[in-house]
């Protein structure tokens, strides 16, 4: 019974930070963000959003070890904005996208209910 506790997948440990930024000096305008207690769900969504942005030179993530719920996002920009600013922008746009989705869903579902009169099946 030496498996890690399941709650370690989503509860931050004592003094643990959600995100930390480490500036990578090997390439210009580059940061490596370490996200704690997160997985592909968040990592891939943010990554995909960032790579679409022309101001981003490089963006990728890795999960260093499968037993630890953490991922590292490496982000290099073209210099117009800092990696941190770009990451913040990406999160904000994603939240807005999700708002649109939520509103669209409500509309669709109401419509669907009206059509099928309660929607029994």
């Amino acid at each position, binding site marked *: 019974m030496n498996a890690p*506790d*399941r*709650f370690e*997948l*989503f*509860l*931050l*440990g*004592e003094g*643990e*930070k*959600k*995100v930390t*930024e480490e500036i990578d000096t090997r390439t210009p305008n580059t940061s490596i963000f370490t*996200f704690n*207690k*997160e997985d*592909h*769900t*968040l990592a*891939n*969504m*943010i*990554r*995909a*959003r960032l790579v*679409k*942005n*022309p*101001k981003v030179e490089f963006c990728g993530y890795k999960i260093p070890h499968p037993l630890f719920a953490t991922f590292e996002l490496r982000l290099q920009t073209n210099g117009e904005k800092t990696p*941190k600013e770009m*990451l*913040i*922008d*990406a*999160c*904000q*746009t*994603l*939240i*807005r*996208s*999700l*708002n*649109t*989705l*939520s*509103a*669209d*869903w*409500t509309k*669709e*579902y109401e*419509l*669907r*209910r009206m059509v*099928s009169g309660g*929607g*029994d*099946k």
Partner: protein
Amino acid sequence: MDFDDDMILDQGPAVTITEAGDNFVNFALQKVDLSFANSLRRVIMAEIPIMAIDLVEIEVNSSVLPDEFLCHRLGLIPLVSKNCTEDVEYTRECDCDQYCSRCSVTLSLHAKCTSNEIMKVYAADLLVDHDRANPWVGTPVITDAEGKGTVICKLRNGQELRMKCIAKKGIGKEHAKWAPVAAVGFEYDPHNKLKHTDLWFEKSIAEEWPASKHAEWEEPAQEGERFDPDAEPDKYYFEVEGVGNLAPDQIIHEGIKVLQTKLATILNALGETKEDAGERFLPDDDVDMGGRNDFDNGYTTPGYNGPSYGNHGRATPYGATPYGQSGY
């Protein structure tokens, strides 16, 4: 932001519901990328909070099933969880010593067989304590015509069950009993035009790989059509099959909310180090931050000592008020 705003305006996500019922909803999600759709799928399966029995105090169990066996079965019984995200606390974040009516629901079970016929004990035999967060949370989900629910155990003459079950809020990542769905079907590109899948075949792909039911929604590749290596998927077919704890549309809404909370937590965490991105991001509507804006405090629960997590002083993102709650 200029670039991002443009992107959102002309291609925000779009939903088309194709079928819906009491426990399922089928829909197509469009104008998003694969990772966005996949994150929604993942979050629906693993991170929507619902109620499930987590602690069982057994007084009498003279049935043929061992205690652990019974407890596992009890845990898997779906419980009504509507609005539990807002109304019910996590036990680990609650002020109480072990559990209380704000963070749990108590269900008691007492059954004894006194005849020579085999007696079946059903989910409907669980007696729900009315001291709970709202009038419906924690009630076993019963959908069969006789109104009995699932069978928990069978008893023969003289055998008895007497126990107290404590249902708590949790997420599927911790245990599958807290998953609001049995399955989420997920398909895109039914004709495999993008060649994300390599279909193995002996003689003919067409004969050996029957078309999926979503195939009619999209045009198959034309004769002699050239493969486009830059093409990306744009339409995703979801089949969300709920367990009964939440209505299918609530499942989607909750999933979206969990994703937004995740992103908001990141923004707040980034804001606390340098310029305050978290505050910039916060909507001006009724998000209750307990009268303060310092997020470090908002996300920590110092007094935590829930029974299933022996540790004290864990920080958790769940203290966060879901983003834009009033906007739905």
